[in-house]
């Protein structure tokens, strides 16, 4: 074997040098954001915030439940200053454990009170609607169910796609529990398990409906609009059905943010929350082609693909009343869905 080894030794020494030089983060004027919102939305917002205030934002991204539990386990030493998530139950969970600092009243006042935490510890920022995505070439609109609960009936066997491990599915289960009780919710989930093709996430469900793998799929409206924007009107063969008359299927989820009590950057963190509900940030969200949620600040129109917010017929369940999703997780396990 030839013995010319200098490059390898050199590489090893280089490696040792870089490896041990772990990155020291500059602490001044830097916020750490734990995010379970879509990365492109967060990137857009943080870039604008940094430009306005000079405060840098370090982002850690995950799914809502894991980021919330991560903050729980990190406890008082959590590096997180702000938690921004897609669904309010995760905020409720942290609020129950007294990990959240009160949001400044001036910021809370920008958003209608019913979309914020009852105790003022988290702030509503965006809303999204649960819908039924359907493929018109596989099923006529007239055959669609009046209620979300109907999808557990045998006639839907093989026609339905769901993503029970997506963090957006949990609040829906929580809402069914809240409205109909645990026993009925479990029976409903078992029916879904029998009828459904299981997908990893909502992105996969909308894609499956669009290519005709399944006739209908339970998703948030966001995902359909995103796929529509991506593929263009000519290439997408699916439409949205809004559950009518306050059915539980038309649940509106609140995406919110909160300041951690343990944060050492309270002032900057409050500044970030205030920024999220300014007309500028909310307009940015409503007009962008990367977010398809309803800005909660009154008078800011959403993306034009979305059905007007006032025309939605959501069930009468306040975001704060949804609880913390813990029961929903247990029922999903019992039904064999996760």
């Amino acid at each position: 074997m030839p013995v010319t080894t200098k490059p390898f030794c050199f590489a090893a020494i280089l490696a040792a040098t870089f490896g041990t030089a772990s990155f020291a983060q500059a602490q001044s004027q830097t916020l750490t954001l734990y995010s379970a919102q879509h990365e492109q939305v967060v990137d857009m917002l943080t870039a604008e915030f940094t430009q306005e205030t000079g405060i840098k934002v370090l982002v850690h991204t995950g799914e809502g439940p894991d980021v919330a539990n991560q903050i729980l386990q990190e406890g008082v030493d959590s590096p997180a200053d702000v938690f921004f998530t897609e669904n309010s139950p995760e905020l409720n969970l942290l609020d129950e454990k007294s990990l959240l600092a009160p949001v400044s009243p001036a910021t809370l006042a920008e958003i209608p009170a019913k979309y914020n935490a009852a105790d003022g510890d988290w702030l509503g920022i965006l809303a999204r609607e649960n819908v039924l995505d359907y493929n018109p070439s596989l099923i006529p609109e007239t055959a669609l169910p009046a209620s979300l609960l109907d999808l557990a009936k045998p006639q839907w066997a093989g026609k339905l796609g769901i993503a029970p491990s997506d963090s957006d599915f949990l609040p829906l289960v929580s809402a069914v529990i809240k409205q109909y009780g645990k026993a009925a919710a479990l029976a409903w989930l078992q029916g879904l398990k029998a009828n459904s093709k299981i997908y990893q996430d909502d992105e996969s469900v909308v894609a499956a409906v669009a290519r005709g793998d399944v006739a209908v799929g339970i998703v948030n409206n966001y995902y359909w609009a995103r796929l529509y924007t991506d593929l263009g009107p000519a290439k997408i063969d699916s439409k949205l059905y809004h559950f009518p008359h306050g059915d539980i299927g038309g649940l509106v989820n609140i995406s919110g943010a909160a300041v951690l009590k343990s944060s050492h950057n309270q002032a900057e963190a409050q500044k970030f929350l205030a920024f999220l509900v300014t007309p500028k940030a909310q307009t940015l969200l409503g007009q962008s082609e990367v977010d398809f949620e309803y800005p909660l600040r009154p008078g800011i129109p959403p993306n034009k693909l979305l059905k007007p917010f006032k025309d939605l017929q959501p069930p009468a369940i306040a975001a704060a009343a949804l609880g913390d999703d813990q029961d929903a997780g247990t029922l999903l396990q019992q039904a064999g869905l996760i």
Partner: protein
Amino acid sequence: MPSGRPSAALIACCCLASLLVLLPLCVTAASAAGAGFSLAVTLLWRPLVGELLENTLLLIACTAMTCALIGTASAWAVERTDLPGRRLFAVLAVVPLAIPPFITSYAWVSLNPSLADFSGALLVVTVSYYPLVYLPVAAALREMDPALEETARALGNSAWSVFLRVILPQLRPALLGGMLLVALDTLVEFGAFALLRFRTFTTAIYSAYRAGFSGAEPALLSMILVILCTLCLAAEYFVRGRARYGRLARGTRRAAIRHFIGAWRFPAAIAFGAWALLTIGVPLGMIVYWLLQPGDAATAPVAASLPAVAQAAWSSVYLGAGGAALTLALALPLGILAARHQGWLVNLLERAAYLAQSIPGIVVALALVSLTVHSIRPLYQSAFLLLIAYSIVFLPLALVSVRSAMMQAQPVLEETGKSLGLGRIAVFLRVTLPLAAPGMGAAAALVFISITTELTATLLLAPIGTQTLATQVWADTSTLAFAAAAPYAAVMAAISMAASWLLAHRFGAASIYAPVTVV
């Protein structure tokens, strides 16, 4: 081999390395035990776990079979027939090992989005892992003594009967060893199955982590996975350790017999071409295809810009280099100990290190997260913790090479150095290290390649604000933003293939995969 007593310092270093490897296992076992009996039963005795077991075991059985069939058939055709282009194919057969399976998975899913579940998983795993059977079987076919086959023919056996009764039994250790490696790699694979929406233990552990960060549920699922992996590893050890076919005659052996397959040459060559297209053409072709498509900001969590790709590539490279250095530092004392000394303690320490093979990256990462978040906060979310995870996962890979490199550095030369008046450290630096350096370079390169294509540990442990090529590909592909993922995937595949090519070029094709052998 001289077997003087190893120095206390050497033993201490080796103990440290072996304990580090066992640490994630202990943490996982402890958090699984923390669940208590009744919770453990509720969590494990549910429909999902049965489904996972069925999925996983069925997939392992099928991929081991398909890889065995394709690997053996192609190795036989390349080594034993006059197939046109066989030299080229011998090279092409190794290339899939340099393409990470989750890139192959990305290619297939983006080619045909309805490709999912079992069929997709079987396809992706087979095209990614068949070289693990091909390489050892081809080597065994090359080294076989033709005298046995000729004797069998002379005794009236047909060619087919010679294959079944003479060749196949001699191939058994290589074939079974390869199949078990395929099984082991299939058990620990995560990214490929997540994209294909095929549920196995790794994806379920990740989902459990997603649903509750860390806790009893992922730990319990991890324990099942570790048990399955350990069974594979034990079987592999058994197969390699016991079944050996020795050749007693010394003398030089002739080259193996080649069959002339006549009219079959061209259909066979076309089949091989098609197979190369499936295994290499599709993954690389799809990356190029998506590179040429415009990306859309709406679906892409991570937009691909030149600075973003460069930043991610730099992170991958420095983590790969740092991880390789740390892994080598851990493997070196173990390699010296294993090559220079004997005894129960030596065996124990070495085998403990090899046990890391049966602890998947996701289990290591999860254990380190829960350990550091509760007990070792300064390390939590640090780049160093990620390097530690890499060095645990890839220690066996490095150890195989380091150990054989140390074997090649003959002790007699060290003794000569000593007798000429060099001190112990000077002997190590001026004699041992230069002799062992090529093997150690190979180990470093192998670990570097593995780290730059590693996904799960990186996903769980990357410090806030650090994105690597693998995590960027993951972020984009998991939302089906294929065009945005392409530049990251292309750079990753290029780094991996270039490093593999350098490695194979210097050390031979077999060096880019390291079957674990506990001697």
